């Protein structure tokens, strides 16, 4: 006795007497009575088909059970079914109402409008409401996850596109660099060839310089030997001059001694003259001797002066000679030093010439090796260039794939947005909220309020309110998204009743979401979300719609 | 040089030096000899004389009187001239100590400084 059969029975209108046979209570009386009687009768016969009286105890037991059953049925079951029979029409009505609500809820759910579905679900019994709301919540959560995932897919696609662009840019730069390097390597090869030629010439010059250095070294060595010999002779002269100077000093001392003797003699002669005068006449001859002695002293003095003069000249010459020899020694020393320095420099020059010759040969060899290496580098760079070209082709495919991925993300987003969720990210919910606000606004405030709503939503390109005649009563477009764009057509002159979104909304009285199409406003790809404006009594008053550019849908 | 030399005092002479000049003082005339730092003070005739060095004592000296030519060009008081070790010296007159031997400043002078000629 399920509700369904009860409903079906209520629906078919059976005759009164037939309905009593289908009455479960009457059937119950019949079955129980029948069974009790049958059971009693079956236990009455004894062994071998004879009838026994009194009946055996199982018969009495069966009879007692049957009577108890009849009593119970009559006291409990039959009244129950009687009550049930009285409540059945009520239940049928209640069930019909419940069914209607459930159907409405599932219908809204099937249409993707989880908000209205939840509204219907809340009117259901608690258990049913809870289950249905839970299912709706799970579906809403899934839809939002799908939205998020679509945005993530689009972001990933954008990243891939950016990476592909960057890599493509890098590849272009790399290709340009390869070209530059190739040119530089060729220039390097030419320079190396010139260096090799110069090195060869340098080696020849170094060989000649080495030979010249050998001859110069010999000459310098001879010059050094000569200067050393001169130095020795000058030293000998200087030593002799010193000896002469020493002798002249001794002569000066002797002259000084002689001079002193002359002076003493002079004084002695004077004293002799004095004594001669004191002696009177007897001293006259002595005074002559004294005078002679004085003359002798005078001549001695003159000789000393003469010798001193000569000695002074001699000493002056000796000094000049000593000075000359000293200067000569110094000069010889300087010449010797310079000669030795020249000899050392020539030796270094010879070594350097030898080194230069060897280095030149090494340079020549190295440049040849460098040329070979440059050729290898050029070949390698050409291979790199081919790889870069192939990589650029692959990047283009990657970019195309990224575009398809982006489109896939948009498709998924649109699929998710087809659900009307109780979420600020649900476009249908957003537009329905706008519809409620615009419904409350006066006609003079309509456009201003619509403009405020559009400017406050960054991903909305345009919003509009179209009345039942298809006339665009209010129009607003995002200044940040459409700045500078020319309006392709005056939308107010168009009859919007022909637009697909208008027809869907006006017909189904519910929000609608279109697939991307080319906007009449600026010719770019947009999709539209539209919602009906209904009066208090549910009459259709118009449509509120928003256009969203496909390039900005990730900002939802 | 005349007249002939004659010793003034048989007791000998104390030889001292002042400013490079050698002086001789009769031992009998010496009243005292004291040391003042690196220098000496000689008490003669009641006066204190400053000397740089005490050269020594000689038993006798041949003393010549001062000549007129010397007095003409050197008016200081002296008892005569002598020679010792081939060096000339001036004999101090104990009654008239020479200005050349006076103490040079007040710090050197002792109590009861003798003015020139006062003790004579």
């Amino acid at each position: 006795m399920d509700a369904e059969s009860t409903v079906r029975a209520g629906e078919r209108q059976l005759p009164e007497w037939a309905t009593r046979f289908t009455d479960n209570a009457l059937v119950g009386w019949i079955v129980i009575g029948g069974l009790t009687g049958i059971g009693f009768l079956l236990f009455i016969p004894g062994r071998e088909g004879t009838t026994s009286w009194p009946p055996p105890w199982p018969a009495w037991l069966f009879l007692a059970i049957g009577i108890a059953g009849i009593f119970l049925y009559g006291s409990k079951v039959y009244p129950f079914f009687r009550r049930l029979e009285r409540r059945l029409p009520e239940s049928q009505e209640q069930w019909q109402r419940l069914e209607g609500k459930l159907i409405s809820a599932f219908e809204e759910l099937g249409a993707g409008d989880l908000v209205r579905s939840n509204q219907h679900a809340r009117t259901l019994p608690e258990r049913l409401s809870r289950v249905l709301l839970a299912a709706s919540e799970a579906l809403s959560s899934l839809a939002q996850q799908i939205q998020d995932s679509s945005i993530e897919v689009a972001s990933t696609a954008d990243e891939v596109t950016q990476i592909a662009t960057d890599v493509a840019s890098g590849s272009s730069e790399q290709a340009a660099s390869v070209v530059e390097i190739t040119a530089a390597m060729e220039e390097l090869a030419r320079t190396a060839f010139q260096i090799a030629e110069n090195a060869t010439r340098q080696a020849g010059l170094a060989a000649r310089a080495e030979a010249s250095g050998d001859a110069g070294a010999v000459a310098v060595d001879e010059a050094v030997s000569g200067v050393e010999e001169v130095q020795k002779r000058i030293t000998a002269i200087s030593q002799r001059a010193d000896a002469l100077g020493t002798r002249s000093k001794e002569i000066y001392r002797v002259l000084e001694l002689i001079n002193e003797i002359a002076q003493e003699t002079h004084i002695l002669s004077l004293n002799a003259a004095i004594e001669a005068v004191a002696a009177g006449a007897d001293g006259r001859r002595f005074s002559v001797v004294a005078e002679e002695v004085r003359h002798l002293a005078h001549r001695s003095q003159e000789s000393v002066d003469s010798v001193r003069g000569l000695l002074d000249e001699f000493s002056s010459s000796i000094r000049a000679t000593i000075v000359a020899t000293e200067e000569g020694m110094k000069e010889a020393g300087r010449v010797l030093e310079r000669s030795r320095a020249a000899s050392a420099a020539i030796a270094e020059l010879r070594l350097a010439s030898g080194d230069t010759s060897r280095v030149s040969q090494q340079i020549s060899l190295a440049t040849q090796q460098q040329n070979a290496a440059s050729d290898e580098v050029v070949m390698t760079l050409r291979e790199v260039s081919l790889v870069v070209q192939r990589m650029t082709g692959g990047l283009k495919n990657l970019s195309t794939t990224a575009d398809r991925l982006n489109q896939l993300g948009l498709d998924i987003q649109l699929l998710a947005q087809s659900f009307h969720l109780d979420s600020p990210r649900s476009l249908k919910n957003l537009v329905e909220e706008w519809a409620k606000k615009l419904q409350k606004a006066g006609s003079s405030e309509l456009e201003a309020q619509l403009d405020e709503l559009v400017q406050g939503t960054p991903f909305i390109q345009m919003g509009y309110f179209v009345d039942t005649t298809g006339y665009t009563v209010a129009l607003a477009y995002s200044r940040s998204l459409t700045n500078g764009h020319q309006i392709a057509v005056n939308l107010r002159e168009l009859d919007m009743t022909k637009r697909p979104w208008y027809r869907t909304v006006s017909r189904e009285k519910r929000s609608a979401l279109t697939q991307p199409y080319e906007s009449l406003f600026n010719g770019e790809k947009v999709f539209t979300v539209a919602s009906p404006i209904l009066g208090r009594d549910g009459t259709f008053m118009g449509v509120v719609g928003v256009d969203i550019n496909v390039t900005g849908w990730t900002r939802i | 040089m005349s007249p002939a030399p004659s010793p003034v005092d048989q007791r000998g002479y104390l030889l001292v030096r002042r400013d490079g000049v050698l002086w001789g003082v009769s031992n009998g005339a010496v009243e005292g000899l004291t040391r003042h730092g690196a220098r000496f003070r000689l008490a003669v005739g009641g006066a204190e004389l400053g000397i740089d060095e005490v050269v020594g004592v000689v038993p006798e000296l041949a003393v010549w009187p001062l000549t007129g030519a010397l007095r003409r060009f050197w008016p200081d008081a002296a008892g005569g001239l002598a020679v010792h070790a081939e060096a000339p010296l001036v004999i101090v007159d104990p009654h008239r100590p020479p200005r050349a031997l006076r103490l040079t400043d007040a710090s050197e002078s002792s109590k009861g400084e003798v003015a020139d000629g006062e003790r004579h």
Partner: protein
Amino acid sequence: MAEPLAESGHRRGLSAGSHLLVQAGEYVCALPLRSVRRVLRALTVHPLPGATDELKGLAEFGGEPLPVLELARLVGAPTGAKPAYPVTIVVWVGPQDARELVGLAADAALEVSEVQLTSVVAGNGGFILGEALVDGEVVRVVNLEALGGDQ
């Protein structure tokens, strides 16, 4: 008015004759030979404090003290070149009855020469008796008698 020395010299008992010519500064001085005791190389002189500029100091001569005078200062001679062999002339000074030995420091002892009295021109006094020409050179004759004692 100064009289010719020839006459005054006679009245004073001086006679012409040999003179020792010595160099004193830029002057050549003549010393009467009879008054010259000895010519010596310059003696070591010990200055006496408080002496005049003319007195060089005391020296030792023959074991006796000898005052030494600067001849150039005595005669007022300008300072000459530094002498190579300075000498000390030991002379008798003062009057004949009171002669004293004095040393005269000179730059050099030149020669003994005859000085003609008649050629002597009297001086203005002091230690120079007069001037004379000897071999064309002016010599100052020193008045040795004026050197002795207080005059």
